């Protein structure tokens, strides 16, 4: 990229204005201004999202898809409006390809239990990678155990990139499903999901992409990726927790059996037999997180208003700055140095456990995550029990990363 458009993009991004939209950033922690570097665990919410959710309860709340009354129509329209926003956000062809559910974890479980149980049999294989979150490991383990299938894992190298030669070798005609994260939550690696999808499709496997860590940081286009399923969580894209979305290609969703039975997912019910509702409702049993879904729509509006390309440029600048200032600290090693990264600075300090780092940084007002980040196999790969992870959002600043570096030096001072 030439310097000019990037400079223009940064100029278009009013960081102070964005920060003012997050009420929590006015909070202090232990007397210090909050420095929130834990957005990979869950993002903070802008006022627009908070308002959207309370407005539902104040003015237009009702159950959806049921009543003939005014409020039910308002709530249904708003909820279906949110679905249409998700469809646009992901670049899906049709809104019936968007299943609204609790989040990415539920989406992976849905695909494993519905598509997987139908199409994976004894001797078949499911392929994942060595950098997956537990939620993209365990549902496949459960499926493989039930079906007598085998879970294969494409290893990662020292930088935290998937070994693509090994990935290709591990694909076989027995591979039924490939499930990979778009961005690693523990390392920040951006996976080449488009290439992975091409390779997987060439051997006849379907591809699921776990987009939980990607959706807040980069523009997603499921048709450009070519994947069959894509999932993300609302709470990581500045929306509420307890709501998220699964994209599935209509032809696959049509052929899949329902996952959970209940209200809203049926066309008709008799004691002898029930028939299923059309897409996507077939996969949406029970009353969903209505206000949360509507607020997810507001979060997508907000993100699109700020602009994902602008956010990505800003966060990339932060990532470079953070990598530089942390890299200057003796005894600090960054874990995850992939060529393409998004949003995550994971690191270890010589002789100091991440748990201690987390407690001491908290006293500086700095919120980071410490531990295995629900990715124990990643920790095992590097032979470490845990890391400290600073993760970025659009509202973070270079100065906050300088404060992080200063805080880390204080930690080292205490343990000298």
């Amino acid at each position: 990229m030439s310097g000019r458009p990037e400079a223009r993009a940064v100029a278009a991004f009013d960081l102070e204005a964005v920060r003012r939209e997050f009420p929590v950033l006015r909070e202090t922690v232990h007397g210090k201004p909050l420095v929130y570097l834990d957005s990979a665990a869950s993002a903070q919410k802008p006022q627009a999202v908070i308002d959207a959710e309370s407005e539902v309860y104040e003015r237009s709340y009702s159950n959806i898809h049921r009543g003939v009354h005014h409020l039910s129509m308002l709530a249904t329209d708003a909820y279906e409006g949110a679905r249409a926003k998700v469809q646009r956000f992901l670049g899906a062809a049709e809104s019936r390809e968007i299943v609204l559910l609790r989040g990415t974890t539920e989406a992976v479980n849905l695909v494993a239990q519905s598509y997987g149980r139908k199409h994976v049999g004894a001797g078949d294989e499911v392929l994942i990678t060595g950098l997956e979150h537990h939620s993209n490991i365990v549902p496949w383990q459960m499926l493989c155990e039930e079906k007598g299938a085998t879970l294969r894992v494409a290893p990662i190298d020292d930088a935290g990139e998937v070994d693509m030669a090994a990935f290709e070798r591990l694909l076989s005609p027995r591979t039924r499903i490939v499930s990979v994260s778009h961005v690693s939550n523990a390392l920040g690696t951006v996976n080449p999901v488009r290439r992975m999808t091409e390779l997987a499709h060439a051997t006849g496997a379907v591809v699921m992409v776990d987009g939980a860590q990607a959706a807040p940081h980069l523009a997603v286009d499921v048709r450009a990726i070519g994947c069959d399923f894509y999932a993300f969580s609302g709470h990581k894209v500045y929306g509420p927790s307890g709501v998220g979305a699964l994209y599935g290609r209509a032809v696959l969703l049509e052929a899949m059996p329902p996952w959970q039975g209940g209200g809203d997912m049926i066309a008709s019910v008799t004691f002898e037999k029930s028939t299923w509702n059309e897409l996507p409702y077939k996969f949406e049993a029970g009353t969903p997180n209505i206000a949360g879904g509507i607020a997810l729509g507001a979060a997508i509006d907000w993100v699109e208003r700020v602009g994902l390309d602008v956010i990505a440029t800003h966060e990339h600048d932060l990532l470079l700055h953070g990598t530089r200032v942390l890299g200057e600290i003796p005894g600090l090693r960054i874990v995850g140095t992939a060529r393409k990264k998004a949003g995550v600075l994971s690191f270890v300090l010589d002789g100091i456990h991440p748990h201690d780092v987390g407690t001491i940084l908290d006293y500086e007002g700095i919120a980071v995550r410490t531990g295995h980040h629900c990715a124990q196999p990643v920790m095992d790969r590097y032979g470490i029990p845990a890391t400290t992870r600073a993760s970025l959002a659009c509202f973070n600043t270079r100065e906050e990363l300088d404060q992080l570096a200063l805080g880390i030096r204080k930690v080292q001072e205490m343990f000298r």
Partner: protein
Amino acid sequence: MDLRELYQEVILDHSKRPRNFHGMPDANRSANGHNPLCGDRATVYLHVEGDVVRDVSFEGSGCSISTASASMMTDALKGKTVAEATALFERFHDLVTADPSKAAVAAVELGKLAVFAGVHEFPMRVKCASLAWHTMKAALEGGDKASTE
């Protein structure tokens, strides 16, 4: 609340130079402890003769609080009877969970171990401080596993 109340000099010292930090070939009791939340692990070895804890050691990996707690525990338990060791476990538990009616008494009875009193101000760290103690208790009782969960 000052951070130094948690990270006291004696705690930092034991975390950097843990005492009795090795295996024990002639141990007749041992148990593995695990804190699934943060991945800390501790193995506690005991050599119990009759009613007396003759020797104690530990291995594992963890944060400074869990390492120092394990180290100071091993120092404190040598030569204690099984009943005394169990009582110390109870007192230590009272101290770090800060049951107000018991913490003051516990602090007196625990002697040096009272430096862990600051832990109760850090609820997320109570499990770090207690891991080795739970593991020791499991070993005493003949179990082989302890978890802080």
